[in-house]
């Protein structure tokens, strides 16, 4: 599927499975009861002797109510648990505890790969800079060599936009800064986004695992030309 990372795929399938399960119970129940317990003649027997001005007879079952408090609770704990590791992966720390090691020395390669669980792992990462400004992006390759990172221009729907060339197999850590208002880097190709908040320096992992080329968008409303605040990211072989 376009723009969907392996990490996202793994979670998505689990969640869809549980969604279908929950929906099947709820809708099966709903359709059964709304058909089976319908009133045939429109005039209905008053099951609980409801009358005006009288608080109706209590109708409850503590065991059932506890059941559908506890079971959903267990389910959400499970869903939180399976989302825990992706949390670490998405906002991995730098350094040995993280998924991407420390910053690469000159000439060193990230050699990233996708492990069995769908997480990108690398030996080290490269730092690049992305600055947002109304209404364009500015890429900064810092001290990286030309083959690791270079900037150029691309034509998107007839307009000149910045182009960032990255290299497949390398992992990048983008330092996000804003010169005016809040923007957000949306990289559908990497399945990641992060806000670009003025006065803050936020980070965004950009694990370039395979050759691709996609449109980077601004996902936080920033004014008139917000929709045209695009850039192209190309991952070369």
């Amino acid at each position, binding site marked *: *599927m376009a723009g969907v990372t392996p990490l996202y795929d793994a979670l998505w399938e689990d969640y869809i499975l549980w969604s279908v399960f929950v929906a099947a119970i709820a809708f099966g129940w709903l359709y059964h009861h709304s058909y089976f317990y319908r009133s045939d003649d429109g005039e209905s027997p008053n099951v609980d002797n409801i009358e005006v*001005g009288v608080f109706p007879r209590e*109708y409850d079952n503590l065991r059932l109510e506890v059941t559908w*408090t506890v079971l*959903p609770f267990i389910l959400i704990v499970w869903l939180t648990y399976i989302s825990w590791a992706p949390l670490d992966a998405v906002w991995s720390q730098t350094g040995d505890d993280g998924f991407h090691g420390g910053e690469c020395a000159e000439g060193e390669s990230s050699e990233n790969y996708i492990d069995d669980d769908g997480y990108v792992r690398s030996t080290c990462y490269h730092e690049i800079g992305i600055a947002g400004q109304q209404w364009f992006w500015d890429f900064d390759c810092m001290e990286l060599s030309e083959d690791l990172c270079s900037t150029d221009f691309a034509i998107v729907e007839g307009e000149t936009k910045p182009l960032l060339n990255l290299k497949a197999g390398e992992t990048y850590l983008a330092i996000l800064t804003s010169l005016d208002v809040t923007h957000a880097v949306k990289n559908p190709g990497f399945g990641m986004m992060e806000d670009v908040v003025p006065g803050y320096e936020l980070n965004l992992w950009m694990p370039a695992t395979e050759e691709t080329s996609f449109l980077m968008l601004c996902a936080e409303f920033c004014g008139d030309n917000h929709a045209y605040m695009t850039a192209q990211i190309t991952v070369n072989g």
Partner: protein
Amino acid sequence: MNKDAVMSRRLVILSILALAMVVAPSVTSLPSGISGVKDTGCNCHGTAASDSVTASISGLPESYNASTTYAVTVSFTGGPGDEGNANVGGFNLWASGGSFATVDSSTQLMGASEATHTVEGNDQRSWTLEWTSPDSGDDVAFVLHANSVNGNEGDSGSSGDMWNKAEATVLGFGPPPPPEVDPFKVLATLIVVSAVLLSIVVLYVFYRNNPDGFEWEKFAPWITEWLTSTDHKKIGTLYFVQGLFFLGVGGIMAMMIRVQLSSPGNDFIGQDYYNQFFTLHGTTMIFLAAMPLIAGFANWIVPLQIGAADLVFPRLNALSFWLQPVAALLIFTGVFSGGGADTGWTGYAPYVVTETAHAGVSMWAAGQIMLVASSTLTGINFLTTIAVARAEGMGWFQMPLFTWSILIANLMLFLSIPAFGVGLIQVFLDRTIGTAFYDVAAGGDPLLWSHLFWYFGHPEVYVVIVPAFGVISEVIATSARRSIFGYKSMVYAMAGIGLVSFIVYGHHMFTSGMSPTLRFVTMLTTMLVAVPTGIKVFNWLKTMHGGSLVYRTHTLWTLGFLVTFTLGGISGMFFPSMGMDVHLHETYFVVAHFHYVLVGGTVFGFYAAIYYWYPKMTGRMLDERLGVLHFLTGFISYNALFWPMHRLGVVGMIRRTHTYYITTDDFQALPEWAADWNMLISISAFLFFASNLFLVANMIKTLVRGEKAPADPWGGWSFEWMCSSPPPTPSFDPHNLPVLTDANEHVANEPGRWGKWFQRLMVADDAAEEGSH
């Protein structure tokens, strides 16, 4: 030159031409030029066109501008026409529009749009003349015939001559462009037209009720009563009308948004207006449509349900309402003061205080500050009323669930909206007197706004949905002819939602650089919302068990609510999970989710409420057939409208942009089918909008001539079904308030331990106070 003269001249020319053709073999070249040959060709110079002559027209533009003069050159090459011949060549140029003018004596006109050579021009191979374009904008066709003449004299006159034809088309500019239309003028016109239609309907209903009512002595007190009333039912109706009116306004704005998005790169309203429309759509729908609808039903039903004569602060209640239309005017006034707000309903700092944002943002903030005041007063009023004005015998845990839902919603609102008010005042001051709360250069913190806004914003969306829970609880129990299953767990679940709502707002800021620990905590708390919501859904389902479900329109909307709200709840579970949230954040998946819970939840819930309580409010039964039609058309078009948005979000279509990008050879963006799906969504949006006209028609029709409603048409138990439809004023005789009895003997009208504690919290001196009521 008048038309007749032209015509007669043409006739003369044509007869000369006819004569010339008769004597054709004897002429060498027609010194007077040739005319009328557009279709037949120059048969005076040979019967058929010849390939060896190439005629050409140059100087024509590809497409013309209105009433512009172009120099046109016609020429030919090839054939026997050569320097030194007695004659060299001639031409005829015909145009389907515009007019020719000569520039020298080598050409002449044969009518306004036909030209040919003159005697002098007979010795040339190219001629220049002027063509003035028409202003019709239609395409203009040109037909040129050129003769190449060998100049031999005598009998063999034209033998050996050759001719050929050339055609050209100059594109027009289409019909002249209509004057630029300001989308807001369209919106304002629609609003004015709706308001006029609405007032005609109101006046007609008024007239039907009392044909003599238009005498000033009768009309003045009637209108004064509406404008100054402190009666909870009248104020409720005012809220209700306001809510429905702005639901329509917000809907029209949504239609404009959908037309803009129906195809990529569309320029129907363009980015400037799109940004204002999506901002005002959100603000209108949440604050001016959903909240007033809730307040309308709360005003109408809560005092009736708890057996109170009115709210305890009726004047405060009137003030709460009258702040609303004024606030609405302020919010929309921004449109006329340099552009409406273009910040999104979230109004993220620092954009909201920058100069690039429209000037109307100040008015937008001012209007919302008034809404904050209105909501705060409403909160005080309802909390107090529910705490002190319940009928005898009605403990906390004998309150109808709709009253409970209003209590919890107002408690949430009362605790959260001050934060929003503070943020709005900061923004307003930043924009007007130059404070620097959100000026980053001066040390302002953009995330402060996010915290203040979402501390309010997340409880706010529950404030909007919880009253719908109350409605559904009432309707499903009444329709199934059962007590609600697990009354107490319903109350605890609502209270749980209210509690959890304050600790989950961080998920709106997942991508704003939160610490990983906090991200994990927020993920867990956000997931927790599913537990109380799940309890409610399962309790509703269990309520139907063993009952006998009576299918009325409100039952249908309730079952529809259960479907859409459950789907919305399930899609909501995808956001707390980080690995997916970073992909889905700010995409149409979010738009689909919150429309599933806000439209499929709140709006469907309140449609159920309209069908359920309308007979009580007006004394007229709604038409069930129109109601079923409303449900079927509405439910189907609603799902066709919002369900496809999930998939668009998954493939990466982002919110709040007036256009979107389709994958090209150079880069990946949205797949090609995204454009078709957007068109489908836009069409469904119009259908959904139109389906609601059934509701409006139903309400007006039954108001004028509906079946009279009995006091308890559906068989409910709470006090509102005790009084007549519509209820008298005051709703209950203050000296003879109703008393609630309880079918469960063991409860014996005593509040539980927590209830007592809570009651003491709300009312200091409860025993004394309760006695005096």
